[in-house]
């Protein structure tokens, strides 16, 4: 059970890492609990052996130098101690089940609250802190004017110059912060965003220290030199600008230089892509990859997993009849025959599969050609009013779309059904797209590209309007930077994306000079050799 105590420590750590709750307090509590558990177990390890001394008794029989005392040493086996220790973990599995309950509760809580305040806590804190930091220099400058205007020196040229620079720097800070940080949070990350919290902590510390100094030196002493106060405020604005620069470097620029190549495979149908990725932590890399996923991957169509067969032929199991009625050889003969039949069945399965796939492709091609022809013909019925001579009935694009749609509606429906795309395209969406294409003078080919090739996932609007829930599954803490050889998974409801990280090889580039005069050639049609 020594191992048990060790393992329980490990498993609590594992659960800490895999726990997906967004509440930081719960993490800290569990850390404290596991620490207590380890501490208590270490205390008990101290006294393991007990010495028992039996009282000396006289020996009645022979006594050839036997010791009068008997010392019995008893060692309490360590397993007995920890057997009762089951504060948070007895075995790994039980710990996991308890954690699953908690994570399930957390999920329910999230669902009930919706976009609860818990998720956006980080963003809210950040905005309030930055606002506070922004208003601080203004407060520094304004407070003396409000509080002890009478005793202040009048502002001379240097002071005015400082005011101007102060105003402009504040303006630049405002524009920079707005340009970079004022965005709708599209992403909700499971763990705290390290760089952002670091920057926020820095801002907080700066502002606090400046306020401290200001409170002690300025508000208490009330110096009359206003220029110094303005200079002090300008120095705070400078510091804030530098923090802004640091934020730009850490949050925006650091990950732009590619360092790894990442392979993303979808586990259901094998779609894979490779991406260049810079220095990222796991969770930020996951976010970035998901953004690329919506652009690059075709939507997962579970109906396309099985090639539809026209006539499902099931090869039933073969029945074996024993002609000779010999019970002895029956089993061996049967098994051999079964293996042979299974082998033959395998071959016929290959053949059937091959011909089914061929048949399917032929059908798709036939329907596609009919669809394309019908669409092209339908598009010839429509012309712009300005190009048409003679009597005409003007229609707006939507009516025009409705007018020509029935011409290719049926081949389109058959094609979509064969390629299992019909849930993605409703009639409304098709008509809207058709009207759009007509307005912009699209050729039939431009109109058809949307249906002939499955575009990226983001084209299916019906799925995008609801919030996309992804789960990041990783056995390493999410703050770790990417390392080559690392892999994690992004799970969605019906499929998951498996991500593997590989390092870009260090390239050693050498210089070699090729003299253009060395590019001389001779014709070698008749080679002459002297002998």
């Amino acid at each position: 059970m020594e191992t048990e105590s060790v393992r329980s420590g490990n498993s609590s750590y594992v659960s800490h890492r895999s726990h997906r709750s967004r509440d930081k307090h719960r993490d800290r509590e569990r850390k404290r609990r596991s620490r207590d558990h380890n501490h208590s177990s270490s205390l008990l390890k101290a006294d393991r052996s007990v010495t028992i001394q039996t009282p000396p008794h006289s020996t009645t029989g022979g006594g050839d130098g036997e010791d009068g005392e008997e010392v019995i040493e008893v060692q309490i086996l360590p397993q007995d101690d920890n057997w009762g220790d089951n504060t948070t973990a007895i075995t790994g599995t039980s710990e996991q089940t308890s954690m699953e309950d908690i994570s399930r509760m957390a999920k329910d809580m999230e669902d009930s609250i919706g976009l609860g305040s818990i998720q956006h806590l980080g963003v809210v804190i950040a905005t309030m802190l930055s606002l506070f930091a922004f208003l601080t220099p203004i407060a520094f400058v304004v407070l003396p004017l409000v509080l002890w205007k009478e005793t202040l020196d009048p502002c001379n040229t240097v002071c005015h110059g400082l005011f101007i620079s102060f105003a402009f720097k504040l303006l630049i800070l405002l524009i920079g912060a707005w340009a970079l940080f004022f965005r709708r949070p599209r992403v909700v990350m499971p763990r705290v965003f390290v760089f952002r919290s670091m920057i926020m902590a820095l801002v907080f510390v700066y502002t606090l220290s400046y306020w401290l100094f200001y409170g002690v030196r300025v508000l208490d002493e009330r110096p009359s030199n206003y220029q110094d106060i303005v200079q002090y405020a300008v120095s705070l604005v400078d510091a804030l600008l530098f923090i802004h620069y640091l934020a730009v470097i850490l949050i925006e620029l650091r990950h732009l230089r590619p360092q790894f190549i990442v392979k993303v495979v979808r586990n259901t149908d094998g779609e894979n892509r490779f991406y260049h990725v810079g220095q990222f932590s796991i969770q930020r890399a996951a976010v970035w990859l998901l953004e690329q996923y919506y652009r690059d991957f075709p939507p997962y169509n579970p109906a396309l997993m099985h090639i539809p067969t026209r006539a499902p032929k099931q090869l039933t199991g073969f029945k074996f009849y024993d002609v000779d009625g010999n019970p002895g050889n029956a089993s061996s003969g049967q098994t051999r025959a079964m293996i042979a039949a299974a082998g033959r069945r395998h071959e016929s399965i290959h053949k059937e599969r091959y011909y089914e796939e061929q048949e399917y492709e032929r059908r798709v091609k036939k329907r596609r050609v009919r669809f394309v022809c019908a669409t092209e013909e339908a598009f010839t019925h429509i012309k712009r009013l300005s190009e048409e001579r003679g009597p005409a009935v003007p229609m707006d694009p939507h009516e025009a779309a409705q007018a020509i749609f029935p011409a290719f509606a049926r081949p389109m429906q058959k094609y979509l059904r064969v390629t299992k795309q019909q849930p993605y395209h409703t009639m409304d969406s098709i008509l809207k797209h058709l009207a759009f294409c007509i307005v912009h003078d699209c050729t039939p080919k431009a109109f058809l590209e949307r249906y002939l090739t499955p575009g990226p996932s983001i084209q299916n609007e019906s799925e995008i309007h609801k919030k996309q829930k992804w789960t990041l599954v990783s056995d390493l803490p999410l703050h770790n930077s990417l390392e080559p050889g690392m892999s994690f998974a992004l799970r969605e409801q019906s499929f998951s994306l498996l991500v593997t990280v590989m390092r870009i090889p260090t390239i050693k580039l050498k210089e070699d000079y090729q003299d253009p005069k060395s590019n001389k050639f001779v014709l070698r049609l008749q080679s002459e050799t002297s002998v």
Partner: protein
Amino acid sequence: MAAGSPIGGIPCLLIEIVKEPVGGSAGLGFSIGGGIDQDASRNPWAPDDTGIFVTNVMPDGPAARAGLNPGDKILQANGYDLTMATHKDAIKYLTKKKEQVIRLKIFRPDILRTRGNPAM
């Protein structure tokens, strides 16, 4: 080598050259061109003939003294057939180090008018 009527053969001339190896060269004193892997259409003496031809004979060399002329087609060298040989193979046969004397069977267009005995 009596002069008889050729029974399905080509009249050829027998020339013996004694090698005088000087430095790196094999010492025969002539240059050859041609071969089945070469472009035969540029052959100045017999276009579209892929045989081995003597293109150049060095003056006062062993080949010149033996009576080799430019334009001679080499049919055989020491028993090795050169009518269907690549350029490299021909050079190999001609420059074998073990052989000091090379016996060539050559063909000239005006072979019947030369002074040597036509051989088979």
